[in-house]
């Protein structure tokens, strides 16, 4: 079985597909129980952000290792409008659309590592990792 999977995100159906694919790879990486739900939830939030703000993008899921532990890395890339103020976008409850404004800060809380890069006019990249316990 391959250690990486890619899902193209272009519609709300792909949000469901992305979290199913990510969850399936997390099972291969050795995650169980609530961690699987946590990973799927974070993927759902980030995938939904892509559909909402950039309309389309890609998500790549990969099994990673730091020597002793395995984990799953999620990289979400879009070429949408970008985020003018990342600090504000990382605040709970801040949203420029119809959402609850929990996508980015919530995903950061769910995952172990979370990085975001964004440039206005060229797009946004989110990288996040969860490690097995």
């Amino acid at each position, binding site marked *: 079985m391959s250690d990486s999977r890619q899902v193209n995100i272009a519609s*709300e*159906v792909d*949000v*469901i597909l992305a*979290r*199913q694919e990510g*969850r399936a790879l997390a099972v291969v990486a050795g995650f169980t*129980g*609530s961690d*699987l*739900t*946590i990973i*799927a*939830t974070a993927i*759902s*939030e980030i995938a*939904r952000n892509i559909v909402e703000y950039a309309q389309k993008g890609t998500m790549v899921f990969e099994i990673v290792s730091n020597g002793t532990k395995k984990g799953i890395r999620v990289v979400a890339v879009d070429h949408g409008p970008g985020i003018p103020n990342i600090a504000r976008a990382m605040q*709970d409850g801040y949203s420029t659309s119809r*959402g*609850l404004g*929990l*996508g980015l*800060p*919530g*995903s950061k*809380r*769910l995952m172990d590592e979370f990085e975001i890069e964004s440039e206005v006019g060229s797009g946004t990249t989110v990288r996040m990792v969860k490690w097995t316990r």
Partner: protein
Amino acid sequence: MEVPILKQGPLLITTIQNALTDSDLLKLKDNLVELAGRHRSRGVIIDVAALEVMDSFMSMMLRNITQVLKLRGADTIVIGIQPDVAFAMVQLGLNLEGLEAALDLEEAIAILDGRFKEARSNVR
């Protein structure tokens, strides 16, 4: 995908069987509000036991459904939130205010029945 809604006396009961897209959820909301009005329902029970993920949009929709139905005179109770899902929802930081939950169908029916009885005895 159309989510079936059952009428049981003053209640509407619906079971979400699969992960729903945003438009499926919006449609479910419209159908519930329409049916609750048509049947003069007093309570609505939404079973989410089959869901492996409840993200912020899903939770927001459940809250919206609850609030709209409240304004139409019906109480909504969400049942069957899985333990792992509950854990992830809390960690995500969801504001669950206004969302009422019960463990299962039996408990939700008992809660709503109690309320209907109380409402009737207050009238007398």
